[in-house]
């Protein structure tokens, strides 16, 4: 619950603040929250919905957190007077008089809220993270402070948690064979950095392929996909060098569809960067056509982070640019990761040749970090070729189609059941709203009992009352698997009373039911 993407956003903010306050970057963050009319910019219907939280649910959720907090204080009091046994690790005797390593309130949440439902996270698996996984059974005899492995394996759990969008997490098939071959030839490590002697022919091959996949002039691959900490930092520095001399970084959060009234006088801003981030917890898709129109109007630079969308969106799997049928030329910086759709690890940045040349000479990763492991590179290359159809099969295309079908089907069925589902109808990330803290744990456990592995998240990964379960669809999911999962979700939904939606869809109705929730262009 604690580890998650909203934190990642917070981290980005943190990094922006820390690294850039003195810098002069003018960056704009978008958070997308409302459904709007589709303008003429869109070639296809754009259906995105965030149903409002029912008032009663919101109140009960706050009450829930209130009760938890009260009990937390009570138990802290009991622990303080040693009435309740303390399970957490303690400071060494020799260092008792040091300044405490942690602030007490920092851990209040962890100790009293997270610990109650800790078993829903970090569940260890022992198989390929494909459509079904094997989970190691574990038990706790001390209220989740520690876990013991029973040695049993829960076999064939339906995996709705991994970001295996296109189903490339496999231990058989052409990707695995190619990776195995490279592993035997190259070994696993590189033991040097790109700029020194760790630039293998494999890396060069990968970067050429990524550039052609994205439709950009050049690309650079990184060892780590989790971008912000390292990647955006580099670019921010890039901007910093040029930077507009504002007295501090301006980070403005625009609610979507609000008027972009950019204070625009040429002395003040010399570089304007739109920094687009996908909220992977929201399941939304950025309204890129509008953003590009704005970018063109204000001559800003556009930085697109496609961590979740690359491979998973668009008719040819090239991400959100492809989804809207736009020109990759219009995006200045394309960033994404190989960890998800490609079933590997690492990330990339693509763009104009000058940008990539700058990164090749100035990026931290190229200078100080070990380059990508060769078998991992091979996995990316083969899976990407498969998506592009360069392997001579239509497998990639079928996967993309399958994922799109699964997504629409799964989302529609959940809505029909009456759950509140956030996001775009084409997003393979499906957040199902749980709201109340007690239901986070209950949902995760009930689903596992029914042999389905799901991800549940709450504060601080989401806003405090918007706890949710998140399903990630995969091309590897068959209809049968999805139907099983849906049946169980339906049952658990009734059990935990999760069907909050007031806009229930009539099953198999093609047109959206409620125009305040779903709006579709008629043309």
């Amino acid at each position: 619950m604690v580890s998650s993407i909203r934190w990642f956003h917070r981290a980005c903010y943190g990094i922006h603040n820390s690294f850039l306050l003195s810098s002069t970057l003018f960056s704009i963050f978008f958070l997308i929250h409302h459904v709007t009319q589709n303008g003429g910019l869109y070639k296809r219907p754009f259906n995105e919905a965030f149903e409002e939280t029912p008032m009663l649910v919101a109140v009960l959720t706050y009450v829930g957190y209130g009760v938890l907090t009260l009990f937390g204080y009570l138990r802290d009091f009991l622990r303080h007077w040693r009435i309740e046994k303390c399970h957490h690790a303690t400071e060494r005797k020799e260092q008792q008089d040091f300044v405490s390593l942690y602030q007490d309130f920092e851990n209040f949440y962890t100790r009293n809220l997270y610990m109650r439902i800790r078993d829903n996270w970090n569940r260890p698996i022992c198989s390929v993270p494909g459509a079904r996984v094997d989970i190691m059974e574990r038990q706790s005899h001390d209220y989740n402070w520690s876990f013991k492995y029973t040695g049993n394996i829960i076999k064939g759990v339906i995996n709705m948690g991994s970001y295996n969008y296109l189903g490339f997490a496999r231990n058989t098939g052409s990707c695995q064979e190619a990776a195995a071959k490279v592993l035997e030839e190259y070994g696993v490590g590189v033991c040097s950095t790109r700029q020194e002697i760790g630039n293998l022919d494999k890396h060069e091959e990968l970067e050429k392929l990524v550039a052609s996949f994205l439709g950009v002039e050049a690309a650079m691959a990184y060892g780590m996909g989790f971008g912000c900490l390292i990647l955006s930092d580099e670019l921010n520095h890039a901007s910093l060098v040029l930077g507009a001399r504002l007295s501090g970084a301006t980070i403005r959060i625009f609610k979507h569809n609000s008027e972009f009234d950019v204070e625009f006088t040429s002395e003040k801003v010399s570089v304007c960067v739109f920094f687009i981030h996908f909220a992977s917890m929201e399941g939304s898709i950025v309204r890129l056509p509008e953003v590009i129109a704005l970018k063109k109007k204000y001559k800003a630079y556009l930085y697109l982070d496609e961590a979740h969308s690359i491979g998973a969106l668009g008719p040819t799997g090239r991400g959100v640019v492809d989804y809207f049928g736009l020109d990759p030329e219009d995006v200045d910086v394309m960033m994404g990761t190989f960890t998800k759709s490609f079933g590997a690890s690492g990330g990339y940045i693509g763009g104009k040749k000058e940008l990539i040349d700058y990164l090749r000479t100035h990026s931290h990763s190229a200078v100080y970090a070990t380059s990508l492991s060769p078998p991992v590179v091979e996995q990316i290359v083969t899976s990407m070729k498969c998506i592009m159809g360069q392997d001579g099969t239509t497998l990639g295309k079928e996967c993309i189609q399958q994922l799109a079908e699964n997504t629409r089907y799964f989302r529609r069925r959940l809505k029909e059941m009456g759950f509140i589902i956030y996001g775009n109808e084409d997003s393979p990330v499906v957040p199902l709203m749980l709201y109340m803290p007690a239901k986070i744990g209950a949902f995760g456990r009930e689903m596992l009992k029914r042999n389905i592995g799901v991800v549940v998240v709450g504060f601080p990964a989401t806003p405090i009352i918007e706890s949710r379960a998140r399903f990630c669809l995969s091309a590897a999911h068959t209809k049968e698997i999805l139907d099983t999962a849906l049946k169980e979700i339906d049952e658990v939904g009734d059990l935990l009373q999760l069907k909050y939606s007031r806009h229930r869809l009539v099953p198999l109705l093609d047109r959206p039911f409620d125009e305040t929730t779903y709006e579709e262009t008629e043309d």
Partner: protein
Amino acid sequence: MATAAEQWVLVEMVQALYEAPAYHLILEGILILWIIRLLFSKTYKLQERSDLTVKEKEELIEEWQPEPLVPPISKDHPALNYNVVSGPPSHNIVVNGKKCVNFASFNFLGLLDNPRVKAAALASLKKYGVGTCGPRGFYGTFDVHLDLEDRLAKFMKTEEAIIYSYGFATIASAIPAYSKRGDIVFVDRAACFAIQKGLQASRSDIKLFQHNDMADLERLLKEQEMEDQKNPRKARVTRRFIVVEGLYMNTGTICPLPELVKLKYKYKARIFLEESLSFGVLGEHGRGVTEHFGISIDDIDLISANMENSLASIGGFCCGRSFVIDHQRLSGQGYCFSASLPPLLAAAAIEALNIMEENPGIFLVLKEKCARIHKALQGISGLKVVGESLSPAFHLQLTDSTGSRDKDVKLLQEIVNHCMDRSIALTQARYLEKEEKCLPPPRRRTGESRAHDQGGGPGCAALGRVLGPGGRLPRGTRTGLWSLPCDLGEACVYLQGGHRAAWVWTAPNHEEDAGYF
């Protein structure tokens, strides 16, 4: 009594009002009016500041030309064209189509092409595939990860270890997990770039001490102690950390750990130790600098190292007591938010640990070789060796800087090229000159261009002589030519010591080098 006194104060105030000069009253009156105005005036809005009409705005936008996203890079930037290595980067390496002996990678123990490691990784690949498709929290924890953490903790003889999927992110995430704004970090000026990034992200107060200078560190600690006595309330919540490297990546020197531990207890500061270079190198069993000095690992609060050097895999780990380490499972950014380490890399690291545990002799061999090469590298005209003889990475510096960084870099590149022609693959140390912190200003132009005039000839020749005449090269030794960052960038942070350097290292699993030294 108290009320009487208060009343008296009130009376006094009223009296003072009568007695105050007129200008004083007027001034106060204006101030009061001003405060009222501030209180009731409308909130400041950005939009209101702009008096431009829509048309004017559009004109401005029309006229405005943005600066380029990145500054242009000159075509002959030394780092623009990477060397291309074809095939595996193991002992013999093909660089830019030329077959060389590899003196440039961190493969200290030669485990990169070890068949056992490869077999273990392959078995893992066949079971789990390549990627994990998720962070540790969300079905990205594999049994292999748990095994590896367990093995690392046992190997280091401590309670717990945590693995990261990227070496660079390990210490860079670990530092900000503990040290927050307002905390104080004492850090060696020679600290590597990953530490610098971690400190930057932590937003703590940074105090730099001279490289390995314990007197300087103690001076800073004492200063802080005085400061704390002035403000004990603040001192009670200000954490103090000392961040050092076991073997310094930038200098090849070892930190004086026993003195550091003494200072730790004296001034109550926690020690974070970065062991990327020393893990799997120093100590009888390769446990690093704690074992080297015979210091209990419990005295060090946190040890971090990457698995990309000796272990020849990818990723990094932190280890220490559970009280410390467990915190990172929720607060280590690189741990929480990145996809977990591909299982095949974890399996390779486990097998590498097995090999290290089964053959503790390799560390002794490595040590002997280091000493031998260190000795042999002495007395090359134009180049001097920096760093400990124990270090598997030797820095070769130009004895006389040409006075200009660019020229020095060019000269070193000539040496590298020269060696490459003789089938020795070396590399210059690469730094982000603008971002390394607080570099010393460029050296004075002493002996300017002397070394340069000599065209690197003597240096090269000597290096070639030392490393092996003609085509006969000492197998198994690894050399890298590194330059330390020099020019003073506009960005801030720590330090760098000398100027030009190169480093040389060696692997113990090759037999023949002895003859050459």
